[in-house]
C-alpha cells in the first residue's frame, strides 16, 4: 500500500477507505501518489 497511514483496508473484502476526510500535511505527498497510482482512478483529492 502506498499510503498506509491514510487508508485502511477492510479485513473481509479488502476494499480501501480513507482513515480521515482531511489529509494531514505530512501525508499529502503519499496520498497524491496513491491517487496517481490507483488503477481504478477511485481516489479524488479535493
Amino acid at each position, binding site marked *: 500500500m502506498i499510503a498506509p497511514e491514510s487508508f485502511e*483496508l*477492510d*479485513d*473481509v*473484502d*479488502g476494499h480501501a477507505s480513507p482513515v480521515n476526510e482531511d489529509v494531514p500535511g505530512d501525508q499529502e505527498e503519499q496520498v497524491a*501518489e496513491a491517487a*496517481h*497510482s*490507483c*488503477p*481504478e*482512478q477511485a481516489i479524488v483529492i479535493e
Partner: protein
Amino acid sequence: VSIEDGVTTDGDRKKNTYHFDRHTPEYRLQFEKITEEMQSKCPMAWTDTYDGHWVAADSRHVFELARCPVVSNHHDITGETPFKGITIPKASRATVVRGGILEMDEPEHSSYRGALNPYLSPAAIKRWEPFVDEITRAALDEHIASGRIDFVEHLANVVPAVFTLAMMGIELKKWNVYSEPTHASVYTPEHSPEREKINEQHREMGIDLITNMMEIRESPRPGLVNALLQLRIDGEPAPDMEILGNLGLIIGGGFDTTTALTAHALEWLGEHPDERERLSRERATLLHPATEEFLRFFTPAPGDGRTFADDVEVEGQQFKKYERLWLSWAMANRDPSVFDKPNEIMLDRKGNRHFSFGIGVHRCVGSNVARTVFKSMLTAVLDRMPDYVCDPEGAVHYDTIGVIQGMRNLPATFTPSEPLGPGLDETIDKLQRICNEQELARPITERKEPAVID
C-alpha cells in the same frame, strides 16, 4: 434499410481494422512493435481473426470498456445465446462448466465473489505468510547444496500450487496432480502429440477435485471448497457445476500466473545483476514498487475476452449487441500516455496504475495471493542465491502469449550452500499437520491469527 446501407454503416464502424492474432509466435516476438502501431493508429480496432472481434489496445479504451456495464463476462455453455465468456476463440474442446466468477455478470458474480473474499483479502492472506515462506524455503533447500536449480520447475511451479491447495482445503501432497496439467494445458498446442497425455492428467485432476468436493460436503473442513459449498443464493445452494467452475478458476488463476511473473522477474534480474543487487539492498523501499513494475511489464494474464450485451457507444465508437471484444491488459500496460518509457523496467516507478489484475468489478480476486507468493520466492532467492546466473540456452518461454505469458524452464547456477531445513516432502507433511491443527484455511471472519510454523 438496404443491404448496401448496412454494409456501409458497418464498414464505417469498423474502419479501423488491424490483423490481430495474439495466438501466433509473431505476436510474442513483435509485441512492442504491434503495441506501438495499434496505439498510434487504431487503439480501438476491429480484427477479422477468430470470427471477428474488437481489440482495445490502449489504456483509455481498456479502462472504459472494462468498467462498462454493457460489456459482459457471461459464458453461455449451452450455446443458445452468443455469450462466450473470456476466451477468444472459444476453446475447441467441449466446455462443460463456466469459468467461475470470471464468466459471470452481476448480481450472480457478487454472490460468489462475496463467498471467496474473506479467504483472499489482504488481511486473510497476511496470516499465511509464515506458511508460504516455509514452502519456499523447502523448495530452495531441495537444490541449494547442488548449486543448480530450475526456477520454474523447482520453485515457481511448486509454491503457488501448494499454497493454493492449502487455501482450498485440499491435501497438500496432491500438488503435482494439479500443477502439471494446469501448466501443461496452457503451453501445449491443441494438436501436439503430448496433448492426449495432458488431457488424461486433466481428467485425473478433475476427478480429484470432484472427490474433494463430495468429501467436504459430507464432512466439512475449512477452505475455499467449503466456502462455495456453504454458499446460499436466495436460500439455495450453488449448483455443483458452478462450484467446480469456480474451483477451476482458483486453480488456473492461482498456479500459472504467479509462476509466469516469478520466472520472468528472476530472468530479468539475472540479466541485470546491478539492479538485482540494488533491489536486494533497498528492498524495504523497492520491493513493493518493483513487484508492481514486474506485474506491469510482464503482464502474466495478457487480456480477457468479453461480449457486448447490447448496442453501446464508448469513447466515440459504436458497438453492436453480441460483438466480441478483447481487452488487452498487456498492451494497455505499455501505453506511453500513462507510463513514462513504457518498454523499460524501472524498479521504483511511480504512478504505476497497471492493468495486470484487470479493471472494474472483475479485478483479480487473488491479487494478494500473487503478490505475497511472488515476494516470498523473490526475496528468498535474493537472500540464498544472490549470485545466480541463468542459462539462456535452457530458458524456455511459451511459444505464444495468447493466454499466459509464461515460461516452461529457467535453469540457473549459483554458489552452493547448506540447506536450512528438511526438503519438500517432509515439509509438506509438516505443513499439512499445521494446516489441520491450526485450521489455517478458515476465513478471516473466523480466524485472525497468523500461521505458526513449529
